[in-house]
């Protein structure tokens, strides 16, 4: 063999060895994407920048994950949030370091408050530049510590696969929530062997799994003794997928059911036992029922101040059964006589078994009678008008046109409360709103996430003229991705909810709530390539909604509504639930 041939063979085998090493060892970016695939991630909402280019370079190559380029990182995180709410699967968003990362903060806090599973991945400056106030550096793990379930700063590429695995586990188990992974740029290009750990080692993380049988017994006993029970369902019922069990409990006991804003959809609005929403803008009959109840069964709720009003008078005659997966919620705001830590679905299953075994036969006739009287006496109502569009009317029409089968997303404000009051939800994961943080600008990007999850569905984003301007850049994303989202703007030319407070509690001093200087929303729609319609007469509402719902194009419907309309009933902040205005 000639020396030249020998040398060539050696070179070739060396190449083979190098190739083999390359195959085994992946870059951080490759590890990240491979791990995301293993977690079943199908779609990522994100925005590229200097620190995450290597990840985007890998995304360029991958075929298994769809990436949606939003126009703002806040759009990405809310879209991931909406996707998670619609599917129950964790939403994933990706941003670069510094401003990219900090633009996620509102959306992360939003997901945290509403217990939505989310994995936020941020680029970070290279490890050697960390802590030097480098270009586009922000301590995002530090910034997000109080608003995440956990946050990671990856310092060794060999930890990355494990961290991704842990992040998804943390985001989705126990009380769901957002988890952040901060990924320095050099980690994304360094190489390591891809090992996906089958077992997780989180000794401090023990989400409650066992339901305490004695507590279930006590709860059953309290239910059997109740004369005026009310079931109060929250977002935890939807997260746990416990709607069936909730319906079974309502049917078995005959107890009326009310819900928090986050619980909307957990129980069908059309059900005769349904009282609608409780709290500040709840129905009068829900508020009276809770006020006079002798047993309040709180399921996956956290007794937010928008629900309880004045804490010291909240359900003051009632024993409270409180079931929640997060033990820290038990007794946080309202003292529970029977606290039960655990998954609502499992706890309800156990409770139903015990109740059935004991022969649950409550006589609630007089309680039901009383509630029916309240329903007759104080229904949700507004003055109908033939000349001017009432915002409530638009919601009612959306309900009729879509037969209650649409996916409804809202922004935050008066329109949100009207949507909660007047839209009739029939099933969970069809009504999406920023409950805890109250984030204006949530709706439009969240609607993108919902529509990505359900491409064929009719999605309506019910918006105010204020909120829609907080993330309206996402119209570009919507049109570019051919998402047939319908935006119904209830345009009252005001920051309506603040205006309402100013009218009622600040002597009608409308300080900076007049939205003069709005864009022409029809032209805005057209500028982005969507369809825009302005609707000014009540009789035109329905045809416009029908056109939008039937069309595969994105629509912006600018409903010019009565400027002076307020949301009633209203429990003023800090007042008791029976002290309602405008009931």
């Amino acid at each position, binding site marked *: 063999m000639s020396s030249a041939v020998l040398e060539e063979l050696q070179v070739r085998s060396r190449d083979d060895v190098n190739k083999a090493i390359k195959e085994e060892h992946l870059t951080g970016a490759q590890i990240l994407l491979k791990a995301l695939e293993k977690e079943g991630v199908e779609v990522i909402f994100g925005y590229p920048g200097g620190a995450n280019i290597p990840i985007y370079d890998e995304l360029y190559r991958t075929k298994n994950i769809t990436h949606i380029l939003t126009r703002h990182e806040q759009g990405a995180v809310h879209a991931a949030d909406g996707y998670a709410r619609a599917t129950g699967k964790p939403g994933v968003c990706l941003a670069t370091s510094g401003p990219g990362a900090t633009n996620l903060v509102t959306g992360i806090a939003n997901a945290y408050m509403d217990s939505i599973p989310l994995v936020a991945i941020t680029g970070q400056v290279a490890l050697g530049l960390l802590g030097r106030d480098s270009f586009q550096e922000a301590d995002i793990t530090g910034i997000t*510590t109080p608003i995440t379930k956990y946050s990671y*700063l990856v310092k060794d590429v060999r930890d990355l696969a494990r961290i991704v695995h842990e992040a998804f586990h943390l985001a989705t188990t126990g009380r769901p929530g957002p988890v952040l992974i901060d990924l320095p740029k050099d980690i994304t290009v360094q190489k390591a062997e891809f090992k996906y750990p089958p077992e997780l080692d989180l000794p*401090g993380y023990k989400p*409650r799994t066992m339901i305490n049988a004695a507590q279930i017994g006590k709860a059953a006993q309290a239910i059997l003794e109740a004369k005026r029970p009310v079931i109060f369902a929250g977002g935890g019922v939807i997260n746990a997928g416990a709607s069936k069990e909730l319906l079974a409990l309502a049917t078995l006991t005959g107890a009326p059911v009310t819900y928090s804003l986050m619980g909307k959809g957990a129980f069908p609005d059309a059900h005769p036992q349904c009282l609608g929403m409780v709290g500040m803008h709840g129905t009068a009959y829900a508020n009276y029922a809770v006020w006079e109840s002798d047993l309040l069964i709180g399921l996956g709720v956290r007794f937010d101040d928008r629900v309880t009003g004045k804490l010291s008078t909240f359900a003051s005659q009632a024993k409270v059964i409180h079931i929640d997966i997060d*033990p*820290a919620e038990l*007794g946080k705001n309202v003292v529970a006589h029977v606290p039960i*830590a655990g998954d609502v679905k499992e706890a309800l299953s156990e409770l139903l078994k015990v109740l059935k075994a004991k022969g649950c036969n409550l006589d609630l006739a007089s309680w039901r009678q009383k509630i029916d009287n309240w329903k007759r006496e104080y229904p949700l109502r507004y003055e109908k008008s033939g000349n001017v569009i009432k915002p409530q009317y638009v919601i009612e029409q959306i309900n009729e046109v879509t037969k209650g089968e649409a996916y409804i997303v809202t922004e935050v404000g008066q329109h949100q409360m009207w949507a909660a009051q007047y839209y009739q939800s029939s099933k969970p994961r069809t009504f999406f709103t920023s409950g805890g943080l109250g984030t204006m600008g949530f709706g439009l990007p969240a609607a993108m996430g919902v529509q990505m999850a359900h491409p064929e569905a009719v999605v309506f984003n019910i918006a105010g003229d204020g909120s829609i301007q907080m993330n309206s850049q996402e119209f570009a994303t919507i049109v570019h991705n051919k998402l047939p989202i319908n935006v119904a703007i209830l345009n009252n030319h005001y920051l309506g909810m603040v205006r309402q407070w100013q009218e009622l509690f600040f002597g009608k001093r409308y300080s900076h709530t007049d939205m003069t200087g709005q864009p022409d929303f029809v032209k805005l729609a057209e500028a982005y390539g969507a369809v825009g319609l302005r609707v000014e007469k009540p009789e035109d509402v329905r045809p416009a909604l029908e056109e939008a719902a039937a069309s595969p194009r994105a629509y912006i419907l600018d409903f010019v509504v009565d400027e002076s309309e307020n949301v009633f009933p209203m429990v003023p902040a800090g007042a008791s639930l029976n002290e309602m205005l405008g009931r």
Partner: protein
Amino acid sequence: MKHTLAVLVENRPGVLTRIAGLFARRGYNIDSLAVGRTDNPLISRMTIVVDGDDRVIEQVSKQLYKLIDVIKLTDITNDEYVDREMILIKVNADPAIRGEIMQIVEIFRARIVDIGRNSLIIEATGDEGKINAIESALRPFGIREVVRTGKIAMSRGPKHKNGKSQELL
């Protein structure tokens, strides 16, 4: 009332921030916090003294326990436990009065660990009462600097069988 919590946490970066941040954010009153690693280098132990009524302490405990890095949390307030704090005091000590200070040091079974031209550094360990007592005994001489570790505490008797103490949740 003051409660003493023994908290085992994972020895990871950011743990102290998470715990301190939790107290700050939720408005709990932290009295002292001492931290160091245990026999297992992967686990640190914190002794946290918190002031508050039962409701507050329950919330503190539950919220702490929620943190992913917290492995175990025990309220040892009502247990029999041994607690210690260490203090270093730099006190004015002209040669003329050193004898007097040394007597005090003797009484408290403390130690002098450094002598300067006009000052002494005294080291003492003991429970909070003793530490307070030695500090006030030395105050008349003029204290220049004080550093205290905060309380560390351990239940008496065998591990995992600490009387009435309850592992919370």
